[in-house]
């Protein structure tokens, strides 16, 4: 069985006054149908740019300079904007961090949903409204018939994000890229949306790429985890296995720095330093300057190692060696 989405050696660079910013540099991964994949990293890790690249949303000065993105066997890199538009919303959709910018403030919810439907198939207004209502109910919006006439500003942030999710689901895409969809929401609303997304993805058979900086949120949802640092994947594999025994020192550091991993009041184990500038990456492993395990070998780029479902890029992986 071939994967739903196959990304190989994707490189997305941005031209800037201070040099080429290698936001994504040699990223490869697969997403299977119906699978939820967590894409985790800090700001500047390239996680969001990876998501935007999949949807063909990279604008100048950015450009996909190399690699291939295949959705259901069809190459997306190099498609015209027109062809991409036909695909977006139909086979692949995106949910953004800030729902208020993703929705058009001067159109009612119903109108936006009808337009999203009409872009890909011809349906009668009644049928479109019917589908919109069903979906709004499905994403947990009370009184969906009434909400069709509402405008985005009349809804709370959580409700707006639900509407954005409903629009993403309208044409039953096979893949939805979710870019920090719950970061801007309150804890209790975030939990509601997480639970609904999980059920929706299962019921619709939609695969999700869940982009987030928050390991706990991702672990509540995803079955597979990809950790990015400075534009590259440093570790990937089944989420439980990675969280129990990370192989890459960066993953370990991220986990250890969570307050829940230390006794109250105790010093957290912090990663020293900060993310290097993407325009001026050190040669070899980008994490080496912050890594306690780094040595001379780390001046060369670490090759990808695989062991079953797990993969990592490190010269000194944290593997317990049987005595």
């Amino acid at each position: 069985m071939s994967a739903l989405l196959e990304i190989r050696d994707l490189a997305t660079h941005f031209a800037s006054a201070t040099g080429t910013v290698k936001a994504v540099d040699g990223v490869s991964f697969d997403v299977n149908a119906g699978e939820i994949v967590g894409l985790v990293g800090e700001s500047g890790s390239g996680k969001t740019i990876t998501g935007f690249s999949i949807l063909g949303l990279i604008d100048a000065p950015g450009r996909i300079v190399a690699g291939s993105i295949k959705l259901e066997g069809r190459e997306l890199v190099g498609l015209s904007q027109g062809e991409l538009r036909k695909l977006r919303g139909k086979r692949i959709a995106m949910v953004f961090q800030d729902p208020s910018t993703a929705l058009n403030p001067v159109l009612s919810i119903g109108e936006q949903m009808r337009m999203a439907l009409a872009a890909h198939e011809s349906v009668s207004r009644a049928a479109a409204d019917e589908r919109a209502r069903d979906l709004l109910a499905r994403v947990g919006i009370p009184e969906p018939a009434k909400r069709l006439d509402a405008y985005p500003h009349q809804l709370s942030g959580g409700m707006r994000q639900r509407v954005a999710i409903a629009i993403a689901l309208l044409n039953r895409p096979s893949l939805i890229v979710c870019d920090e969809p719950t970061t801007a929401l309150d804890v209790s609303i975030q939990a509601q949306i997480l639970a609904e997304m999980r059920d929706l993805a299962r019921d619709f058979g939609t695969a999700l790429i869940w982009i987030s900086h928050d390991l706990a949120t991702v672990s509540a949802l995803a079955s597979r985890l990809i950790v990015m640092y400075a534009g590259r994947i440093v570790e990937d594999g089944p989420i439980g296995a990675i969280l129990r025994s990370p192989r890459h020192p960066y993953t370990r550091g991220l986990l250890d720095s969570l307050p829940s991993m230390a006794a109250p009041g105790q010093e957290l184990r912090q990663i020293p330093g900060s993310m290097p500038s993407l325009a001026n990456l050190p040669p070899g492993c980008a994490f080496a300057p912050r890594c306690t395990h780094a040595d001379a070998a780390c001046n060369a780029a670490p090759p990808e190692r695989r062991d079953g479902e797990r993969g990592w890029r490190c010269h000194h992986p944290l593997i317990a060696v049987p005595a």
Partner: protein
Amino acid sequence: MTALIETRDVAKRFREAPSLGERIARLVGAGSDERTVHAVDGISLSVAKGEVLGLVGESGCGKSTLGRMIAGILPPSEGTALIDGVPAMGGGTRPVKTTTRVQMVFQDPFASLDPRMRIGDIIAEGPVANGLIKPGEAAADAARWLATVGLDPSAAQRYPHQFSGGQRQRIAIARALAMRPDALICDEPVASLDVSIQAQIVNLFLKLRRELGLTMIFISHDLSLVRHVSDRVAIMYLGRIVEIGDSRGIFASPRHPYTRALLDSAPALRLGDEDATGFKPIRGELPSPMDPPPGCHFHARCQHADAKCCIEAPVLTGGVACHHPLKEAPQ
């Protein structure tokens, strides 16, 4: 133990400024009622010297407004916020802050540093203006506080835009410390930082508390963070404290249903492969603080609510404001 920070029935109401048309309409008796937001609705609490109080709640609960009243930035509509028995702000029609003993650290270090000032001036301006140090000592003082927060003293010559988020937050902390405060109000001080940087700043707070004996109010929506840094925790919901008490006790066995629900709805790191996801969402929307439900504000979302909860607001007694508090879990 003596209380360093004390609030007595502080309340803050924000009135929506009426438009000209509405004011005229009101003059002739045709206008609608003024819309008032009860951001903070009569809160009394005290924080002992050297203690860290965590202030938790969702957006609109008034935690930041309460913090700003204690820090002396916002005058309360009612009640007073006292620092060591002295009001944080003077009286009169235009109240100004009168004490230097409480300082504040803000959420977004990109907004809280004046972009046109050098770091050294940002840190030393307050102490010089308030006569804590002489102008000639400014450079040495700035260098000292930069070192305290783990930055190189050469940073004093540079401007905020030349620093990363984590470094800027350190500068903001240095600015607060330079005023030699007894108390620090920290409003979501790590919320806008990356995970690995958050840990650095949390550790800095722990170190400062240890070394300087600071009293702190730590405002955050992040339960695991508050649990980590606080001795006591207060949970707020729509302008009121619903539960307050020893951090360990509250996280082990919360007594207010909202606290319980909040704890349950935060996803925990799932280390096993088990299918249970380890979080339970609270039902319902967060009500608007413009128009809070009568009685207990939480009743519409609460499983234990009955008729009494819809009418009568519960009073905070024994650390919990609830008509039907949950039983403490047997130890």
